[in-house]
């Protein structure tokens, strides 16, 4: 019988470093969207076009009267804290927070493509960051949960 050599996970410190970088970037993106919205405007698409304005002005951009970017900002702050902390609580909270963020990003991307019919590059940036954060946190959790910090 052939045996497959197990893939060695990166060191936990490396994964935490990656997550720290991504979460910090995410806080920046979510903060920009929140500030642009609070001024009564919308984020400006650097690549041009009106996608960001269309998405920002759609009713899907707010949840219970609050801009979804505010929830994103809170999520990234939690993820940054988890990346900076050691131990199982940080590993599990980081995994669960990034899982929820990733799931919600999938839903928001579906809305952009099929309901709003416009793409906002800031939302795409956030979705990519959340996907990478999920990958980093899932790897950290699977490789290191239940082990010594």
């Amino acid at each position: 019988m052939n045996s497959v050599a197990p893939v060695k996970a990166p060191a936990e410190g490396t994964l935490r470093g990656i997550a720290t970088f991504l979460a910090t970037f995410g806080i920046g993106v979510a903060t920009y969207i929140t500030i642009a919205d609070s001024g009564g405007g919308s984020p400006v698409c650097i690549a041009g076009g009106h996608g960001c304005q269309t998405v920002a002005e759609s009713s899907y951009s707010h949840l219970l009267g609050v801009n979804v970017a505010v929830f994103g900002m809170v999520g990234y702050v939690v993820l940054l804290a988890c990346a900076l902390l050691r131990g199982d609580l940080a590993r599990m909270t980081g995994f669960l927070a990034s899982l929820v963020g990733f799931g919600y990003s999938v839903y928001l991307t579906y809305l952009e493509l099929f309901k709003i019919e416009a793409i906002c590059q800031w939302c795409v940036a956030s979705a990519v960051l959340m996907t990478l954060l999920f990958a980093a946190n899932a790897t950290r959790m699977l490789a290191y949960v239940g082990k010594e910090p």
Partner: protein
Amino acid sequence: MNDRRERLIKLASAAVFLTIVAVAVLIVSQSGSSGGDSENIVSVAEVERELQGIPQDGMVLGQPSARVKLLEFADLQCPVCKGYSEEVLPQVIENQVRSGEARLDYRPFTIIDADSIPAAEAAIAAGKQERGWNYVEIFYRNQGEEGSGYVSDEFLTAIARAAKVPDLARWNSDRKSASVKAEVEEATAEAEHLGFEGTPSFAVQGPDTRGLEALGLLESAGAIEEAISAAH
């Protein structure tokens, strides 16, 4: 330590399963909605861009000096009119209305069912505050299934808000007024007088026409542009 690791990984697996179910439920619930939803008014910015900078007077869109007037007789509940609003008229608005060659006059022709009347009255009332075309265009982009009962006060008000009608209280009293009711009835009677039987139907008036000429259904933006050019 291994037991604890096993328990935590089981917990994570359950969370992954629940997240997949939650996202699937959210997507399925959204894909089932087919317009007519006052909670989710879409394409507001798109309409704003389409009409930005073009004067509106009542239900007339375009420069007052435009020599040709194109009348569109339409029903807000009509799916074909929605198709015209989204696919055909933007080209005419951009090329001939914005340039000052023609004016577009929206006339309600309420033929689908009783719900077409309050919808038309709401649009005419928005026109009294120079937001009539925004109202019509946003309505079409959020149109529900024909005759499904989606034309509620709540839906009409959500469209008025999205169309940025400045004085909602005035809009609300105007749309229920006898004069607006009469305006809708007169437009429908005019369409019948012109011999129209379906929506949208067009009529044109210009220096080269003998009064108002009934054109009926024009198949494309090109056909509408030709009719405007011929009326010069």
